């Protein structure tokens, strides 16, 4: 047990307490395992990596059979049982066949009886919240598998949810809960700094051809230098992102920018304030890309700013839609966000006079809660969509198959969606809804020269 813990602690800094607890629970196969362990925490806190490494060490140092499966993959119970039995009793080969839980328990017990050298069994289930959607007996049986098979067996459930969410009518047996808390800033910096040697070796390999840069790199890249960089980096990014893998990815990306003036010789390695002034802009621009995960090779760095600008303005311009499809989209937005009663007044030239009444004046008083652009889109029929389309389009267009097929194209692109009556388009009872936002449709209107605000009830 001590050997397992000491080998894992360097790999997982700031998780010594968790490793020690796991070691006490399942670190010795000669002692009886607990029936089940529940390990939960936010994503990126090391649940899967820690469990996988722990099971690997147990399997290596002791006579323990381990199985690690993902509950997402087990869309039927049979698949899960086959994976478990294949991992725990691998001698059966292709003849493996398990149909239900009773069969699984029986085969597992029979196989374990023929292999007395196995002292323990460990099962890890990732994304364990999916077990709630499976058959009703899956979760209770897993939690009591130790009793049913009469083996030294432990089931480890990993999830992002606390165990209180696993409510069951008949109740579940007691379980050992272990929480992996999110890392704080000091712990994050320690974790990011733990790969200093790896990063330094990568840099030295990168500049192996350039002698001058190699010497500067060897001299400048020290542990203090790297820690200073991480300190600056976290002061910008820690407010926006707590995910350690994401921070690690972005830190490595920005390190080359931080190192550039030192390699050029314009700034000394110890001048932290000037280095900060140089890196501050790129760090803030990288802040907008923190979750994108878009990889760029080195030769395409010139296009960095152009392609990764995710503002709505650029999106509306870059989205290629034919001319009439743009007008259809605008008509759909107007149909979604205007009341049907206002259509005559908005789209007909001679709509007659409208008398002012106190009731009308009061109803028209605008409050923020009532604006339909804030409430969200409402549904409309295809006839109304086409009527508004013909009203806002100045030229005369025939109702052709090409025009009608654009509606299905917009639905495929998720710019429109069916609310009801998807199968009854012929009858005319199908209702659609516009899914794009106000800013997007304003930009599209600007491209085709149409003023969208002029036709919205909220802005009149």
């Amino acid at each position: 047990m001590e050997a397992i813990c000491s080998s894992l602690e360097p790999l997982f800094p700031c998780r010594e307490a968790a490793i020690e607890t796991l070691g006490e629970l399942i670190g010795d196969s000669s002692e009886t395992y607990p029936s089940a362990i529940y390990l939960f925490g936010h994503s990126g806190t090391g649940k899967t990596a820690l469990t996988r490494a722990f099971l690997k060490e147990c399997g290596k140092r002791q006579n323990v059979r381990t199985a690690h499966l993902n509950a997402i993959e087990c869309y039927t119970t049979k698949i899960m049982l086959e994976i478990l039995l294949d991992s725990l009793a691998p001698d059966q080969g292709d003849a493996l066949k398990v149909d239900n839980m009773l069969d699984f328990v029986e085969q597992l017990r029979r196989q374990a009886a023929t292999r007395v050298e196995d002292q323990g069994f460990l099962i890890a289930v990732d994304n364990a919240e999916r077990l709630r959607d499976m058959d009703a007996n899956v979760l209770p049986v897993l939690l009591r598998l130790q009793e049913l098979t009469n083996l030294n067996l432990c089931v480890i459930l990993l999830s992002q949810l606390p165990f209180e969410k696993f409510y069951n009518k008949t109740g579940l047996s007691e379980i050992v809960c272990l929480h992996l808390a999110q890392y704080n800033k000091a712990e994050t910096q320690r974790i990011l700094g733990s790969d200093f040697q790896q990063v330094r070796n990568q840099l030295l390999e990168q500049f192996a051809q350039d002698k001058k840069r190699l010497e500067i790199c060897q001299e400048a890249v020290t542990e203090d230098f790297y820690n200073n960089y991480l300190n600056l980096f976290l002061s910008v990014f820690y407010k926006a992102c707590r995910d350690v893998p994401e921070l690690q990815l972005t830190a490595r990306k920005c390190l080359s920018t931080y190192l550039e003036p030192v390699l050029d010789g314009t700034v000394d390695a110890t001048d932290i304030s000037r280095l900060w002034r140089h890196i501050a802009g790129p760090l803030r621009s990288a802040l907008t890309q923190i979750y994108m995960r878009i990889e760029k090779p080195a030769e395409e760095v010139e296009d960095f700013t152009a392609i990764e600008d995710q503002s709505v303005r650029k999106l509306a311009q870059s989205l290629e839609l034919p001319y009439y499809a743009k007008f259809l989209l605008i008509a759909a937005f107007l149909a979604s966000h205007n009341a049907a009663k206002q259509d005559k007044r908005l789209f007909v030239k001679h709509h007659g006079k409208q008398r002012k009444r106190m009731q009308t004046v009061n109803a028209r008083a605008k409050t923020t809660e009532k604006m339909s652009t804030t409430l969200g889109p409402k549904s409309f029929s295809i006839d109304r969509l086409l009527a508004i389309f013909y009203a806002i389009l100045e030229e005369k267009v025939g109702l052709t198959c090409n025009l009608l097929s654009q509606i299905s194209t917009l639905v495929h692109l998720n710019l429109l969606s069916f609310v009801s009556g998807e199968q009854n388009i012929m009858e005319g009872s199908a209702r659609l809804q516009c899914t794009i936002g106000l800013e997007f449709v304003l930009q599209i209107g600007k491209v085709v020269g149409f003023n969208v605000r002029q036709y919205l009830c909220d802005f009149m």
Partner: protein
Amino acid sequence: MDPTISVSKGCFVYKNGATRAGKKAASKRKRPAAESSSLLGKEVVQQPFYEEYRKAWNQINDHIADLQHRSYARTLEQLVDFVVGQAERDTPDEVLPTAALLTGINQPDHLSQFTALTQRLHAQRAAMVCVLQSRDCATLKAAVETLVFGLVEDNAEVEQMEDEDEDEDGAERDRKRLRRSQCTMKQLKSWYTNNFDSEQKRRQLVVILPDFECFNASVLQDLILILSAHCGSLPFVLVLGVATAMTAVHGTLPYHVSSKIRLRVFQTQAAPTGLNEVLDKVLLSPKYAFHLSGKTFKFLTHIFLYYDFSIHGFIQGFKYCLMEHFFGGNAFALCTDYSKALGRIKQLTHEDMETIRRLPSFRPYVEQINDCKRIIAVLTDDDYLKKKLPQLLRDCLLHFLLFRCSLEFLTELVGDLPRCPLGKLRRELYVNCLNRAIISTPEYKECLQMLSFLSKDEFVAKVNRALERTEQFLVEEIAPLELGEACTAVLRPKLEAIRLAVDEVVKATMATITTTSPNETRQATDHLTPVASRQELKDQLLQRSKEDKMRHQLNTPTTQFGRALQKTLQLIETQIVQDHLRALQDAPPIHELFVFSDIATVRRNIIGAPRAALHTALNNPHFYMQCKCCELQDQSLLVGTLPDLSVVYKLHLECGRMINLFDWLQAFRSVVSDSDHEEVAQEQIDPQIQARFTRAVAELQFLGYIKMSKRKTDHATRLTW
């Protein structure tokens, strides 16, 4: 025809030779008798025009396919390098390498792009590919089964190509054992371990999702999580076909899924760019004798730009125009190379010669002949006309070549002027030049004025660039053609004349400088005159200003630079624009053999208008059915012999929004039944007539014209106004 049979009973085939209502019996275009089956008969296939049509279409289609293949080559190379490169990079964590290919909406070659990618990977033996369609992945179970089955089958297909006995047996064994229910990730892992575990035989497993937006979001998220969980043991690479933008990916995948992938974005060219390439290289190429008129050309590009951005749709429309053109008769088999056309002339029959004589441009040609005997010979003697045809064909082909060269010159000259009055692209200029005489248009005058305002350096550089471009076009595109020498002989002296005029513009600068020195001398002399009084000074200044005005007016036409510039523009206008960029009305005789301009037929057949077609079918059934009992003198008439659905439809057009069913039935009965039974029928309605009426109303409801009202009983609501 039995009047009680409705149109929904089945299909009707009539061969009684009846013509459409409203159409003249003798059609101008003589067409071969169409077979009742959809495939063309032998007598059609062996006709000369069909051979020429097939040859022309094959050439054009190969050219377009080659263009598209070359435009996708760069992106495909990058994509293949990305997939192959993943094998060399080992990732310790569970991160799935993913390529996002931005394909654009309605790209016609979405699937063919991914098919080409699959073939490339197979050729390199670097990966096994599975293409997942969104329609096959309604649930996660279906998605995983399709994925595993596709990868294993893909390997089996690749193995069969090798013709190795041992591998074939292995593939046979694998395939027999595999069932859909057994396709799980565990099965895939064991299969991969057994077949590809050694280092030399390691291959990537590529999963392609061509239509990313159409997938169910939850199925897609779970699939990506499963693939990334297996990245440690199986070398997966994911390829997404994204139609809109990268925000579709970020919107569909939440963070706990997007953190499992490493995304690389690839961009294909935009659809209008692809279309411009097809237009410039294929439709506007001088290699092909077939041409579209300006209106037809504009019509096809209008569908593309305004409706669907579908290059495939555009190509099919062009193919339809080609088909319609050649099926006009055997005379149109002359729409080919000059030497081949000479061979075709001998095969023409008397009817084909009559077709040529009926072309609209043939009449002015006959009228310009002075000799009465020659007029009679041209109109009646086939042999005489056959002797004249080679010269006419040569004039036509030469005209189109010269038109194309002049278009190249004019595109370079006016393409980058401010606001592009005539258009920026070559296709816009093509449409403008063909539709009407371009010299008389206000846009052309505006272009000339802008050219006059250019500075000397800009003007000289622009004209020289246009000359170089045209010269290069002559050398590369025109010279290999059959009539290339004749075209070059006509055009090269004109380009040389323009070049000389440009040289004069360059030299005109020195003369302008020379004329300024006498003015300076004169001013110095005037300054020396003594002034005796204030009044005398005023008189002298007033007189001097008048002299300056007169001198300025005289100087404007006498500036050498201005005169040289105007001469160059005049030369361009007369030699290039006026002679060669003529409208279609001014084209040489029998140009209709080479230009397709019947836009009404194309519009009716390409643009589907379902409501108009339905209205025509129900309002005037004779239009489609061509039977005697349905013939109408006036379309608004109601005859008892019409089909029941047609009668009911016409009656419902006369009603308002709500239709009383009983009144409708009474009107229906009065139209359908005989009048001599009127007295007896008033008592009770014939059950047969009522049944016919009920069925017709049900059919009308199915078609979507009416629905039963929920507020008023025995009433129907009209859905269309």
